[in-house]
């Protein structure tokens, strides 16, 4: 099939065929990282800008490396949200960047939908590196890629996503992608963090981790945002860990072949015990490695849609 999209804004808008095409392309790119010359010329002459309105060293580094391995030039544009308060709108920022001859904009922004706004105002490829609490499609793809590699399939798997699902862009992207590929998704967390509305989006919603922990092929633990403490979505870290943390004790009741995932960075001892993060069921570091291949695939496919440039 031919990849039809110039932008990657969400996994919600992709078909299962399109998701599989990204995963297959990523597989083809994966061995580039193991060669002595870690480069292919796919994006030679193209310019990628990392437009990050929100700090994230990990995601930015991953995109930068991915672009470099495709032989693109990479520019970092760390725009603090303060440029908006100075009166320069997001639209103006993007037009200025575009005027510098950019091909791909990789954007992270604290507002949901910011990438949609950018895409409407530019002819560049726009790749969503996380918008507010909406989606983080490349994270979703790398999670799905990691699962597929470890389990050999997605169809029929039971996947738990645990934590502050309501505020998580990772959870939404995983949900859309996994459902399309035939997995069953269960959101687990306190009622203040997992709204019932997710049931209408196809997820199972559970508030008692212990009653279901033995069912899952994959457990994806979300990071707890420490700044949420005091906003009354949970009373204390201790209570959170006791109810929803992936402790050693809880791991004993999980399936023997369960895959443990986390988008990082981990609050060790809060959402996950250190032993579990470093243990034999954890694929957390593989997720980071796979992120490179997936991001290469996404940038490669989207720029195809730009045509000869």
């Amino acid at each position, binding site marked *: 099939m031919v990849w039809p999209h110039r932008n990657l804004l969400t996994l*919600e808008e992709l078909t299962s065929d399109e998701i599989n095409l990204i995963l297959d392309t990523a597989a083809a790119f994966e061995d580039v990282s193991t060669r002595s010359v870690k480069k292919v010329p796919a994006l030679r002459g193209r310019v990628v800008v990392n437009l990050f309105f929100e700090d994230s060293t990990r995601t930015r580094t991953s995109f930068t490396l991915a672009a470099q391995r495709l032989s693109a030039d990479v520019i970092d544009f760390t725009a603090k949200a303060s440029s*908006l308060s100075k009166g320069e*709108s*997001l*639209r103006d920022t993007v037009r200025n960047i575009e005027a510098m001859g950019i091909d791909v904009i990789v954007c992270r*922004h604290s*507002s*949901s*939908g*910011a990438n*949609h*706004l950018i895409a*409407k105002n530019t002819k560049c490829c726009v790749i969503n590196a996380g*918008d*507010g*609490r*909406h*989606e983080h499609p490349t994270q979703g793809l790398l999670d799905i890629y990691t699962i597929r590699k470890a389990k050999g399939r997605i169809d029929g798997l039971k996947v738990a996503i645990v934590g502050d699902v*309501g505020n998580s*862009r990772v959870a*939404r992207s995983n949900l859309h992608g996994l459902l399309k590929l035939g997995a069953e998704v269960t959101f687990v967390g306190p009622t203040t963090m997992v*709204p019932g*509305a*997710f049931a*209408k*989006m196809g997820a199972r919603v559970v508030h008692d981790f212990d009653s279901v922990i033995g069912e899952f092929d994959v457990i994806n633990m979300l990071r707890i945002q420490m700044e949420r403490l005091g906003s009354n979505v949970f009373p204390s870290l201790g209570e959170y860990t006791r109810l929803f943390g992936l402790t050693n004790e809880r791991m004993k009741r999980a399936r023997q072949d369960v895959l443990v995932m986390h988008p990082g960075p981990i609050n060790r001892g809060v959402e996950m015990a250190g032993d579990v993060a470093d243990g034999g069921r954890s694929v957390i570091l593989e997720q980071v490695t796979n992120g490179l291949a997936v991001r290469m695939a996404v940038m490669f496919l989207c720029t195809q849609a730009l045509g000869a440039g």
Partner: protein
Amino acid sequence: MVKNSNLIIRSGRVVDPSRNLDQIADVTVVDGRIESINPVDGRASAPESSAPGRIEIDATGLIVCPGLIDIHVHLREPGNEDEETIGSGSAAAVAGGFTSIACMPNTQPAIDNEAMVEFVLRQAARSGLCNVFPIGAITKGRQGLELAEMGHMVRAGAVAFTDDGCGVANSNTMLRALQYAKMFDVPLIQHCEDADLASGGCMNAGLTATRLGLPGLSPLAEEVMLQRDLLLAESTGTAYHAAHISTAGAVRMIREARRRGIRVTAEVCPHHLLLTERDIGDYDTNFKMNPPLRTERDVEACREGVADGTIDCLVTDHAPHGADEKAFDFQTAPFGIVGLETALPLFIRALIETRLLDWPGLIERLSCLPSKLLKLGRGTLAPGAIADITIIDPAEEWVISPSEFLSRSRNTPFGGWQVRGRATQTIVAGRVSFDRHSGVASGEPSVGVR
């Protein structure tokens, strides 16, 4: 001051709910007041010799009704004249068929004292296009703490009080405001929103917000404050008006409160009768307003509320914003849409085309009841009344085109809509302020305030 000494509107369908009138008739205006309404029975009414300065309008096939009144309009002056002025807002009003508008005090600075009320009236008189009735703030600077000088403002011409833009959070302040306002017998208008429950929200809390990852504005924020206010209003007996109601629960509460005899009235905007949260699509900021677009169930309940009279008034919540501001991302962009030039066909679509209301029912809620609520002395074609008249072509089909708005702002989610029904002439105190063919009359002093 030049007034048309004589104006005759011939052969229109005269709809005046204030007097249960709905018949083909000629309307004669002399010296800015209604002189007579003469039914046309089969043959043409007596041709009169044309007096100098007489204007004749042929209203065959058109509706002639008391001038439309919008009691919820933001004019942005003073403070944000790039978005709207009292003059440009008045021009938009008459183009939409409104002869009177009441303007909200959330300007910068706020309309919270006598001098500010007088300023609004003076600017309105300068543009001379329609009646502008100022609404004063309940509290100084709209801070929700100390009562503003309501007595002074009433004396200067304020017709009601509100801190619109936000609700009065402090229960004691609201109770005192209700007690105090009762002295002047002017209504308190509340923007029902509990700030804590609403905090950070930018669209209706629910499935679509969950899907889009946008922070939600819970319907509870509206309903909790409304319920509190109903208890307070019941205890004081003051006239209380709930602004821009948007939830099924709010409609139900008002219906029940009325049944209990509480002096409560309510209003609804066209967008809450026609659009749902799902219309936000890919984060289109022209669909961002407060209260936000709700669900189909809420739309249904609001429509029923209008049909059964629970909701008395139809308003626009005309809220102009510059294109630059609306170009921000959805969370950052300001709330609000313009409404004066699109309201009439949208209400026709929501209420007449669905057969929830007939024409007298619509005119009642767009003119008679709003006038009664704020004691404006308009909303009637009774002989001797000030001749504020709107002539409507109920059949004209047209496409809403924001670039043609007379408002200074273009922020509407209805651009491109194919609609039916439009004001052809807007007559204020006997003077044609707007004519669909020749446009807005040049500003001229002046229209009386009361």
